[in-house]
């Protein structure tokens, strides 16, 4: 969408002349579109997924509640003083893709459908008049023969797939608005018995013909209460009839995949928000952390705070050796980092100032690690300019013991390991942005070339030389190979079970790296050979043995974009783009990746068949066995920038 505004006509950009820069523009457009309001309607008051903020008090998803305020002031209209005003509807212009306009229209219809689903008892044919055709048809939206794929004391998961199903299975056909209403009511029955219903649709493929629109739609719905929780996820093929300027009406729905998860617990959802109970007594929580970064971006001098991304992390460690885990919260420029020390009752008290760790120098990540092997948790912190190494006195008080300039880039994720097995911990620092870019205050990088960028910062391995001396040995140990990328994250793991630690690095805008340790602390990048280049927008690395075969598997987060998917699978896009470029682009918008370790030095990409790609605009994405069943689950944080202007780029 911003492609339309920036290049005069992006349809020319998809021409057959595949100049690299042209290809890049298309891709950039697609990624941008992926973020459009179509995916996640900006107005919370009309979005069925976010309307039930009140669900918090029924144990539902704990969306934050904004309290009302009288602090809104009138604003000077930029247009009145000759400044170019922002388009109120950035989605108004589309890149000349009719299909995107169609997708938007379908999206609006689905949203109306979602509102009806929230009240299954009252669904009737009359309500469906404007949404479906008179001869609308579908099979059961909740297939009859569900396969139970998991059933333990906490949760039951059932699944159905068109591909696996027995074709002889007689399907009850629902016809007409009345039949469709019936199908809808039956669909959400398991949700209705659990609690209040909310729904969400994503259009992930769209194809338009003369009179019809075919879409592939992801349906997500949940029914939640204080004592129950159920959710459904399905993929539908929908056919819509186009009717001139009128809204498209649904002609048929074919369920391709269906899955439901129903909690067996009487406790409602599994995780509950205890933030206030733990931190609420601290002024720093009430005055500082309660606010998103948007609050501060208009209040703190640009010289101190110039980054809207808020790529700040967390570190857990027991700073005072009392056996209780403590929390360090990193903060953007101008705001002090916060250390919360846990008390016996589970609450935590802010000791940042007394502990000497209240840095306000734009820190992204920190690690609690014992750097001098004296039995307490020291602290290493990544700032814009370099690393700060702090020694713990054993009581949770820290003094700066060393600092190390990282002129080759701004530090993002950190990870520690004794790569050379000499008995002390060494630190690897991802340096995403070249330092100059951050100083310019550019929100985003300027990757070149977009799909395989090599103008990022350079990551650094600091070898612990004891007595708080750290030396940059990146080049010496072979980690400088392919070291000019936009690295967000890295994690150590012995992927080949040979007893030494290897390193995986996730890079934005291009290929990732797997640096194999030769056992002597020297590394070679084997990502291509091992099949884990994952050429996309890498944000996060997590390792675990998800299939319990004794080999560590790899989960890498990327950006999933429904609009990107729609555009990349357009027949028009297909015809205009050569196959290899298309492959690269489609891969780019696919989402998160799961690589299964074969045990023979290679990995198999199992992302699609395991169903873990759709993590949206993903950031930290970690394996964690959240239900203690011995199988590693996945948690994916996501979302890029939410601001008061609801028009999403």
């Amino acid at each position: 969408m911003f492609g339309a505004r920036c290049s005069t006509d992006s349809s020319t950009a998809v021409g057959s002349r595949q100049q690299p820069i042209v290809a890049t523009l298309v891709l950039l457009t697609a990624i941008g579109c992926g973020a459009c309001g179509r995916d996640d309607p900006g107005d919370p008051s009309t979005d069925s997924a976010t309307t039930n903020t009140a669900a918090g008090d029924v144990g539902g998803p704990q969306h934050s509640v904004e309290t009302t305020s009288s602090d809104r002031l009138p604003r000077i209209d930029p247009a009145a003083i000759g400044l170019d005003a922002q388009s109120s509807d950035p989605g108004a212009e589309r890149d000349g893709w009719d299909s995107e306009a169609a997708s938007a229209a379908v999206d609006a219809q689905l949203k109306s459908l979602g509102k009806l689903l929230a009240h299954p008892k009252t669904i009737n044919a009359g309500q469906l008049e404007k949404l479906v055709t008179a001869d609308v048809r579908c099979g059961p939206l909740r297939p009859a023969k569900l396969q139970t794929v998991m059933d333990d004391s906490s949760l039951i998961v059932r699944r159905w797939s068109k591909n696996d199903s027995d074709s002889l299975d007689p399907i009850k056909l629902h016809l007409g608005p009345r039949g469709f209403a019936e199908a809808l009511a039956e669909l959400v029955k398991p949700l209705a018995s659990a609690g209040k219903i909310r729904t969400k649709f994503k259009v992930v493929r769209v194809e338009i013909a003369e009179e019809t629109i075919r879409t592939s739609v992801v349906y997500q719905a949940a029914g939640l209460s204080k004592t129950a929780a159920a959710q459904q996820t399905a993929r539908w093929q929908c056919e819509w009839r186009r009717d001139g300027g009128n809204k498209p009406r649904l002609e048929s729905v074919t369920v391709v995949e269906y899955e439901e998860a129903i909690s067996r617990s009487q406790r409602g959802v599994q995780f509950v928000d205890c933030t206030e109970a733990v931190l609420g007594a601290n002024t720093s929580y009430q005055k500082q952390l309660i606010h998103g970064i948007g609050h501060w971006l208009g209040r703190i001098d640009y010289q101190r705070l110039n980054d809207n991304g808020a790529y700040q992390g967390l570190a857990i460690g027991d700073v005072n050796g009392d056996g209780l885990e403590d929390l360090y919260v990193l903060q953007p420029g101008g705001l002090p980092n916060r250390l919360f020390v846990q008390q016996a009752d589970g609450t935590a008290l802010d000791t940042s100032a007394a502990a000497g760790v209240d840095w306000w120098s734009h820190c992204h990540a920190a690690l609690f690690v014992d750097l001098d092997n004296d039995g307490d948790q020291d602290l290493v912190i990544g700032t814009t300019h370099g690393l700060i190494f702090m020694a713990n006195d054993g009581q949770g008080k820290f003094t700066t013991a060393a600092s190390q300039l990282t002129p080759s880039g701004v530090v993002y994720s950190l990870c520690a390991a004794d790569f050379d097995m000499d008995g002390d911990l060494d630190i690897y620092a991802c340096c995403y942005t070249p330092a100059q870019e951050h100083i310019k205050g550019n929100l985003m990088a300027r990757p070149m070339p977009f799909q395989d960028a090599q103008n990022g910062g350079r990551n650094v391995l600091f070898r612990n030389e004891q007595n708080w001396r750290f030396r940059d040995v990146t080049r010496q140990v072979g980690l400088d190979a392919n070291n000019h990328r936009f690295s967000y994250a890295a994690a150590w793991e012995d992927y080949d079970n040979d007893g030494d630690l290897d390193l995986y690095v996730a890079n934005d805008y291009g290929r990732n790296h797997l640096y194999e340790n030769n056992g002597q602390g020297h590394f070679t990048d084997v990502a291509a050979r091992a099949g884990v280049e994952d050429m996309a927008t890498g944000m996060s690395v997590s390792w675990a043995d998800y299939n319990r075969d004794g080999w560590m598997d790899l989960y890498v987060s990327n950006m999933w974009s429904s609009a990107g998917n729609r555009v990349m699978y357009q027949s028009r896009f297909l015809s205009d783009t050569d196959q290899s470029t298309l492959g690269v682009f489609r891969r780019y918008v696919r989402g998160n990746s799961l690589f299964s370790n074969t045990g023979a030095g290679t990995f198999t990409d199992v992302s699609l068949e395991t169903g873990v790609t759709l993590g949206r605009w993903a950031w930290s994405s970690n394996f964690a066995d959240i239900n203690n069943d011995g199988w590693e689950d996945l948690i994916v944080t996501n979302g890029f920038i939410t601001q008061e202007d609801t028009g999403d780029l």
Partner: protein
Amino acid sequence: MSLADDDPYLAQWNVVGKMIRRGSSFSGREGNCCFLNTGGTRFADVSAVTGLDQIDDGRAIALVDWDHDGDLDIWLGSRTGPRVRLMRNNLDTKNRFVQFKLQGNGVTCNRDAIGARLEIHLVSDGGVKSENRKLIKTLRAGEGFVSQSSKWVHFGLGPADSIERLVVKWPDGGTPEAGGESNVEAGNIETYRNLETNRRYSIIQGSGEAKLAGPTARNVTLTPTVPKVPAPSSKARVVLVKRLELPNLSYRDFDGQDHPLSPRNGPLLINLWASWCRPCLKELQEFGQHRTEFEKLGLQVVALCADGLTGEDKGNLDGTDLTAARNIAKRRGGQLQIGLASRGLVRQLTELSHQAVYQHRPLPLPVSFLVDRRGQLALIYKGPVDPEQLLRDLALLDAMPREIERAALPFPGRGSRHLFSDREIDKAIAFRDAGYPDDCQYELRIFLTSKLPQIRAGGGDLDDDARREVGQAYFLLATVEREQGRYPTAVKAYRNALQFLDDIPNARLALFKVLWRTKQRQLAQTELDEVMRRWPHSVQVATAIGQAWLELGQLDKAVEHLDRGVQIDPTNGPARFHLAVALQQQGKVGEALEHYDRLLLDSAVAIIARNNIAWIRSTHADARYRSAEVAVKLAEINARATAHRDPAKLDTLAAAYAEAGRFDRAVATAEKAIVLARASNQEQFTTDLKARLLLYLAKKPYREPAVRER
């Protein structure tokens, strides 16, 4: 690779950046996701039933069993408020768990045991398939994105209620003792049995047992709530760390007279208001009430009416009807300076505010700009100004930078700028140390380019510090050029360095060496003479000259200057040391030994001295100089002193053992040296070591090829 600023590709990025600064969302309002592993082949979407699908701009994940109830809780970090959340796991299950905290020995294994691999072997009955009996985890510090989870290793066990065994592979490089048995495999792997489920254990490396860990029974009651995030407020007080020059501004009063808008002998407050804006009017009244106080402090308040600029009124900036505004101004503002804000003026102020903060939002009303007496914008008030606050802020106008910094940040804290030099020279040094000569040069060129006008003018404008800095930059540049073998450019850079750094001999000596190496002997001699002329009696300079000659392979000249240095100061260690080295190279081993003996008193170089003695005593072709006993003794001292990690010292020790006929020890020590040399990529040295190892295996000592005494 770089593109011009007007490149369409970069332009797209710039547009995106601009829109975000103005308040657009970008892939916002997305819920976090959770996928449940349903048996190792597929995952199910459980984002909603887990309650993890908050609409946050999620960033970080830190996993920890915060409340010790046997399941993983999640600290989430987000861009939106609240910036952190504890999502407590209320898992309701019959599944079992076990947790471990590891402690390495802190010598050969890091104390945190980061990198340890843990393997749980379950008993295969109880519903666990035999192929799924093994569970593995690695203890990590840092994973995901900018996140670190707990060092407690948490295993969910499913319904299994018995653990067959736990195997821990410690990240341990083995014992550092040379020649000692280093059965790495056996020493690093430990097995623990008799473990129960639903327990927390701590394990100390080598203790052989897993101990139950406390605190065992914690009764943590935390009440879940939905965090209340305050609604966005347009009110703000922005204190500028770096003040901004006020552009040329002017305003028109109600009588049509134009006035310049700049401070006169004191601070200036520019206020924008509108006749229909209630908070504005209240503020105007307050300004009027405080007028005398303001005057006393020299504060000039100019309140400008912005009717017609907000889009909320149909007002008429073009001056048709300002009666209302004029009346209000008279009534409320008293004797304040009142006038009209023009479009241009408001635009200029808006743009100025855009330099002050990241967000580029339209200005609210009222809004005020406090300008110091030098015409620099110091504070912006969005929303009404509290007159008391304003009076306090006046004191800030002439405050010290530290005080301003403190006032500019919303909370106290500490800056780290002092820890990190922003000088290009320091960055250049960091790059050179890490082995990046190109980046080193790049930083130096940035610095030197910035100083080019002064440099071209001969440096007269630069103060002493700046002169030295320029000199250092050229010196470093020259060094890097020389290391890259680019001698002509190195010479040029040395000569530039000398223009700014002529009070230290190193630069001139470095130049001398390059000139000599490139066969410009006469020019070299000139530089050397100059050094000698300037510092005729300095032992350091004499030593440096001797060293230079030593590097150039001119042993006689080296000895001459080093000897001169020792004469000047017989206690000077470096002078004597280099003299001994030069003599040894000359084959004057007897004299070298005498000097080395003297040096043993000087611990700084004692290690090298001992090493060289032990080497001679072990390997010299002439039996008169060999002494196995002395060699072993000194080499062992040295090996200990370097923690058995320096391959060169171990090489000497191996040679000494061989000379003593203790070939088994010689072989073991040489092997260790080879491992270390290879690990540090010393290829030639590794080859040499291997050759010597073959000798020791054949029970032969090593002999240094004879250097004829000169």
